[in-house]
């Protein structure tokens, strides 16, 4: 018995004495996510051709099979039954033909008549020109659509007639007009301006370029990953891409200047005329899906649940060296459901409801007063892997400082007035990825200002103090939210997952995604706080926090292993 006790003591001494346990958890990958989509290793960028087919959700994506940097780009392929748990299958498209030898770049899927999905994608060809290619499923009766065959007609669209071969890419999902012709947009830059080139086809093989682009902008450069789709005016369900329903508005989206921008407008299918409400960057207007790190996004219509779903690429904010050490780079956002807001002036996004299945261990508060200058911890959840929803009730609105938002850049305002700068009404919000001593914190917060007879709400996500580590991009993001604090509560939802936080303000009116890489606040050393650094008290109407269960995101080869009983 005595020898047994001595043995156990020695064992623990060995384990803890020379710090073995500590270094193990460091090696393990503190930044890998638990419920966000990412491949087991290597580089990922744009989401490609997402779709729902025969009960299965498909996601393809730009992938480097060999390294954690961009290159050798293939279309990797994963499937899911619930948009949360995924199975990785073999690559769908590899760069092994003259028309895509330098990369199988981004593209989309379209359902042709008879429910047949096809892929249109950009190939970087043997002469380093960008061309558009077609691929079809090898076997339509395989609901997993594991194999794809490239068309013998490739390339279908080439950069002729004044199109710059280096600025011709990212074909959209096609839509059919009343004349039966298919239409597709390809991203382009003409004379330094962003263009959405419009092509038409009857048979999906022979494409004719329309003289006029669907739309263009003199205020932007190249349009990458364009997207064009209808949204229902009554804002209840998503709408099919080819829908010609009159009670819709159309969304035109383009990726440029490191973010995804969209405009709303009216589309006339007969003339292919698209007239926008307010144009890209016009009169200070700049509608974005997300005011943080979010690029190359793409939507698809989920016919099963009648939803328009958005995927976005969330790039790393650390260095290439970090990426190589980690062995991976790049995440996808949690898929978001898109609807037109009641005002009709913007889109609303919300994480798909399926993600709520991962919630466990609810911690709840109601009607909690947050005095000016106070912080309180939300404990009882795994703060590095959590979902938190909080709504704030404000009563001292008249004390809000004056501000004229018309000439203010919200991002700049958030960096100049970080959460340590006391305001009247605000800053208040949450401290995510916080270390116990608060030397590390990712601050997601609001400030309320007065402008004439109205109130202006600013939302910020400040990563400048997120990590004691150097060599990272620690940016600050900001946006104004169209919320009236006089008549509604100010709400925030944040999905926290090891090195990413996706924040949704005003029930999805403004979204901000950020990447952080704390040194201290990792794994079980992470804390979550609610705070108010304003002069006046703020009331937390409700706060709900959950730990999030890990999603099952596995490779199909693993499942082929035989069971041993």
């Amino acid at each position, binding site marked *: 018995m005595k020898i047994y006790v001595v043995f156990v003591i020695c064992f623990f001494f060995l384990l803890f004495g020379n710090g073995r346990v500590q270094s193990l958890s460091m090696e393990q990958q503190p930044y890998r996510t638990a419920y966000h989509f990412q491949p087991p290793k290597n580089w990922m960028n744009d989401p490609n051709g997402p779709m729902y087919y025969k009960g299965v959700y498909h996601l393809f994506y730009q992938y480097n099979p060999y390294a954690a*940097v*961009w*290159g050798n780009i293939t279309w990797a392929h994963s499937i899911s039954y619930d948009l949360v748990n995924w199975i990785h299958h073999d690559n769908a498209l590899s760069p092994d033909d003259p028309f895509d030898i*330098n*990369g199988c*770049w981004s593209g989309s899927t379209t359902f042709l008549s008879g429910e047949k999905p096809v892929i249109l994608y950009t190939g*970087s060809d043997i002469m*380093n020109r*960008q061309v558009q290619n077609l691929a079809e499923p090898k076997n339509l009766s395989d609901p997993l659509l594991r194999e794809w065959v490239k068309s013998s007609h490739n390339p279908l669209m080439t950069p002729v007639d004044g199109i*710059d*071969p*280096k*600025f011709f890419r990212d074909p959209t999902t096609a839509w059919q007009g009343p004349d039966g012709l298919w239409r597709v947009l390809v991203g382009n*830059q*003409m*004379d*330094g301006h962003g263009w959405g080139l419009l092509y038409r086809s009857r048979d999906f093989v022979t494409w004719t370029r329309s003289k006029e682009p669907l739309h263009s902008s003199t205020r932007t*450069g*190249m349009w*990458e990953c364009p997207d064009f789709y209808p949204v229902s005016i009554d804002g209840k369900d998503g709408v099919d891409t080819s829908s010609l329903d009159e009670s819709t508005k159309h969304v035109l989206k383009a990726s440029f200047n*490191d973010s995804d921008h969209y405009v709303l407008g009216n589309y006339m299918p007969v003339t292919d005329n698209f007239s926008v409400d307010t144009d890209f960057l016009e009169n200070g207007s700049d509608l974005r899906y997300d005011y943080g790190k979010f690029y190359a996004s793409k939507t698809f219509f989920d016919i099963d649940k009648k939803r328009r779903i958005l995927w976005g690429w969330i790039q790393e904010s650390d*260095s*290439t*060296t970090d990426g*190589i050490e980690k062995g991976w780079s790049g995440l996808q956002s949690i898929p978001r459901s898109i609807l037109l807001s009641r005002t009709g002036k913007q889109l609303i996004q919300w994480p798909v409801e399926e993600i709520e299945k991962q919630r466990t261990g609810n911690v709840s508060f109601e009607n909690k007063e947050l005095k000016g200058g106070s912080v309180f911890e939300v404990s009882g959840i795994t703060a590095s892997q959590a979902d938190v929803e909080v709504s704030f009730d404000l009563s001292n609105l008249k004390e809000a400082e004056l501000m004229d938002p018309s000439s203010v850049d919200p991002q700049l305002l958030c960096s100049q007035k970080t959460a340590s700068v006391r305001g009247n009404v605000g800053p208040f919000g949450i401290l995510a990825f916080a270390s116990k001593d608060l030397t590390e914190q990712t601050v997601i917060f609001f400030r309320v200002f007065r402008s004439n007879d109205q109130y202006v709400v600013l939302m910020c996500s400040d990563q400048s103090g997120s990590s004691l580590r*150097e*060599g990272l*991009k620690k940016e600050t993001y900001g946006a104004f939210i169209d919320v009236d604090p006089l008549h509604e509560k100010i709400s925030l939802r944040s999905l926290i997952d090891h090195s990413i936080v996706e924040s949704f303000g005003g029930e999805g009116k403004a979204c901000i995604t950020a990447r952080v890489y704390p040194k201290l606040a990792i794994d079980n050393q992470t804390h979550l706080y609610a705070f108010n650094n304003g002069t006046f008290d703020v009331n937390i109407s409700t706060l709900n926090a959950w730990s999030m269960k890990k999603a099952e995101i596995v490779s199909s080869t693993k499942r082929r292993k035989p069971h041993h009983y």
Partner: protein
Amino acid sequence: MKSLMLMFVFLMFLPVNAFRPTLLGNLNLIERTCRQTPFYDICIWSLKSSPESRNANLKKLAQIMVDSLKTRATETLYLIEELLHDGLALDPAMKKALTSCIERYNVIIKGDVHEINEAFKTGNYKFAEKGSNDAAMEANSCEIEFPAKSPLTDMNKVVHDVSVVAASIVKIMQTKFSVM
């Protein structure tokens, strides 16, 4: 005869620039471009000292800058390796920092510069901007590894600044490609 005389007089008064459009025109492009970058001096010096800048368009100027980045990074890597081989003179902290810098500079040359050149080749220029920005960050990360005096301060600064200029030119290139 009169018209010939008139033409002669006219020609005499034309500015000399008109006869050297390529050279001076391009000096204007180099000037205009470098003025839009955060490090004007190193931009001008790197471009003007390359004979290839003479008839270069914006894309070529960006390429020259990246080639300069590769050269400077390679020189720095050689220096770090030399310093490490003076093993006897090194204290452990210095050795650790130099070893870390070797990794960073290998990433700059084999990772970032490779990515940038691939991006130029295929036309996906935002990856050239990303690679250049990362190279600047890697050089900075190397510099801050040294707890006391860094033996690489000047070289790290050059690599950093050249990278920032390269990223800057690529950014300009993406918005004004066909115009310039």
